[in-house]
């Protein structure tokens, strides 16, 4: 079965983010989206640690330990960028000023519940960071994740079994197999990897899907 690569997934997300958007990218897979913003668009990337206008990774030797992103990786600042303190940074999220956030996930439920911070395992050290604030704050919450777990189970589930990050907060899921909207009327498939039939995607996903044509 063909799957989208991580960069193909990131490019697919980037294609859907319009010119002029303010966007927060979660650590890990979502960070790749920054590399795929079409050059004719101005998209302003917010980093939770007090940066608007985050730019590309600096050249080797040009890193500044006081200019980093949420993943603590060195970044640069674009012309027009700004620094601010943490309460302002999270006012941008909680206050509904961010157009999009892109987050990773362990599970997304059919009602838009998100689980992405804690497996709940007894020996796991819980770490939430800004995920709960982003989940309830951004105007649209986009999720990037693999469609299936390593053992082949769908990560889109009837109800999350891992501890929740936010309730009913997810708008759209980008996986390595499909792009799926979470709507009050259920899950709607917007796009699908070449060669994968709707029936096969339905079989792999388990929860009821609808093709976009019927909406």
């Amino acid at each position, binding site marked *: 079965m063909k799957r989208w690569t991580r960069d193909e997934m990131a490019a697919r997300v980037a294609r859907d983010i319009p010119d002029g958007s303010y966007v927060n990218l979660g650590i890990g897979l979502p960070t790749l989206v920054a590399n795929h913003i079409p050059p004719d668009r101005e998209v302003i990337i917010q980093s939770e640690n007090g940066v608007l206008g985050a730019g590309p990774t600096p050249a080797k030797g040009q890193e500044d330990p*006081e200019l980093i992103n949420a993943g603590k990786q060195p970044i640069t600042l674009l012309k027009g960028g700004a620094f601010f303190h943490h*309460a302002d940074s999270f006012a941008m999220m909680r206050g509904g000023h961010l157009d999009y956030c892109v987050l990773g996930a362990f599970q997304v439920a059919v009602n838009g519940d998100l689980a992405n911070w804690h497996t709940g395992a007894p020996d796991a050290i*819980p*770490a939430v960071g*800004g995920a*709960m604030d982003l989940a309830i704050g951004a105007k649209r919450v986009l999720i990037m994740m693999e469609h299936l777990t390593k053992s082949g189970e769908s990560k889109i589930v009837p109800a999350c079994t891992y*501890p929740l990050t*936010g309730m009913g907060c997810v708008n759209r899921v980008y996986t390595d197999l499909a792009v799926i909207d979470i709507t009050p009327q259920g899950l709607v498939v917007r796009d699908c990897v070449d060669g994968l039939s709707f029936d096969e995607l339905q079989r792999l996903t388990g929860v009821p899907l609808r093709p976009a044509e019927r909406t």
Partner: protein
Amino acid sequence: MINKIVASAEAAVADIKDGSTVMISGFGGAGMPVALVDALIAQGARDLVIVNNNAGNGETGLAALMKARRVRKILCSFPRQADSYVFDGLYRAGEIELEVVPQGNLAERIRAAGAGIGGFFTPTGYGTLLAEGKETREIDGRQYVFESPIHADVALVRADRADRWGNLTYRKAARNFGPVMATAAKCTIVEVREVVELGAIDPEHVVTPGIFVQRVVKVGGMGRTA
């Protein structure tokens, strides 16, 4: 005459008592007041409650304080990192208490303390483990969770420049929690790269006004890229 400049980091932290709640600025290593934390380790105060975004990196700064067994409890949003092995070991051995706080709640609870707010309702965390047992309220059709302020006895903050009145500027993303923590402690102690003459900081550029600052120590640069 007001002069908040203190001669050394040792002198600045000398009166921190056992059992104090200490806020430490920084996001990972950016903005971590390493000289003040080192002085606190040497000073010997123990049984501390620490407020920081993370739970230490490597074996410097906050990680060194924990390694010296001075920390009873930590409030943070993101303890688990690639190089948080000092905390990980203490936590798994049951030797440190952890309160995980969503990052925006951490910042706003600190801000509330500094602003004299008795708490606030936020949608963050509603319906999750981190809101269990907390008061909730529906406001205009949306569910909110009540969060209380976090006050501190001491805040240790890294800034870039200060004058003798304690006016501060910060550098790049090292600002992070510094300005809110400076407002929320009974005693805010700041380490800076540079102390400048009164008036040398453009009033339009002051980020933390001196009223929030009690002590300033010049420790120089981070020994890193300018």
